[in-house]
């Protein structure tokens, strides 16, 4: 390689880097990984269990590399990569049987936590309850009882706060499909919380 062929990766934008990588300069992919690692990890951390974040983020970048030639259009590379991250997380849940990731049942501690949430008056009390161990456990308990499709849509639309259109773009699904699933998933979540409150979390529609 002569001096003219050398590329200073940090001076090149994402789109130009992608072109160079597709042309065979594989090592430049490391620069894309460095630039977007945190963004992808943040997305993945919201969708998969903590002990699977590393492995799933790894899969996102390998999948991005394999499909790199398909990156085109006016939207930024970051958005394209976010779509791959979300779809990889969705595949994570699709390929795993529910029994493989057991979630413990809720106890009276969780019921008491929900009672404290309802009693919270100030913002401080509200944020305090969100930081509690029980909050994470209730969230995991509820999400584990949803189908991979409903889980992914609920996470994107109701928990992450993406618009239905944006979630549809990330998943590569139709807007109508996401809208229907978002509605069903939220209704299922509410039914679970109600049933648990009544002391019977069985027979919930998934």
């Amino acid at each position, binding site marked *: 390689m002569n001096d003219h062929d050398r590329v200073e990766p940090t001076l090149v934008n994402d789109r130009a880097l992608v072109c160079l990588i597709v042309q065979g300069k594989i090592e430049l992919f490391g620069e894309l*990984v460095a630039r977007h690692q945190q963004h992808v990890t943040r997305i993945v*951390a919201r969708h998969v269990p903590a002990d699977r974040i590393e492995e799933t983020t790894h899969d996102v*970048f*390998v999948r991005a590399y394999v499909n790199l030639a398909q990156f085109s259009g006016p939207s930024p590379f970051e958005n394209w990569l976010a779509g791959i991250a979300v779809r990889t997380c969705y595949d994570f849940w699709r390929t795993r049987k529910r029994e493989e990731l057991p979630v413990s049942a809720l106890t009276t501690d969780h019921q008491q936590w929900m009672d404290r949430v309802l009693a919270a008056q100030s913002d401080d009390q509200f944020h305090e309850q*969100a930081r509690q161990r029980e909050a994470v456990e209730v969230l995991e308990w509820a999400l584990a009882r949803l189908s991979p499709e409903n889980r992914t849509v609920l996470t994107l639309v109701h928990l992450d706060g993406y618009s239905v259109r944006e979630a549809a773009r990330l998943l590569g699904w139709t807007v109508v499909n996401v809208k229907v699933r978002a509605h069903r998933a939220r209704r299922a979540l509410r039914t679970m919380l109600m049933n648990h409150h009544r002391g019977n979390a069985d027979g919930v529609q998934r």
Partner: protein
Amino acid sequence: MPMAYNDKDLEKVERVLAETHRTRHVPLLGPAWTQRVMRDIRSGAIREGNGNAGRGVEQLVWRTAAVAAAVAVVLTASIVAVSWTGSSESAGLLAEEFESVSLLPE
């Protein structure tokens, strides 16, 4: 029996769960992780290269097969045409033979 949640209660629980979700811990993936990604990409690229070579051979085989099939069709058609012409000629000759030779005394 506890009182049923109303919509407002459920919204409150949902809001807390959403905040819990947004404040999930995001781990920092170190240089060792990046090296693993790049190592797998390099080995994948090598496999892809071998795969391309394999695909080249496969394409050659299929192209050869298509040419061989076309040649076979042309040969079959020409053999059929020739044999049909031959048999019609034979039939013609035979007919001529019968036409020219009369078995009855004149």
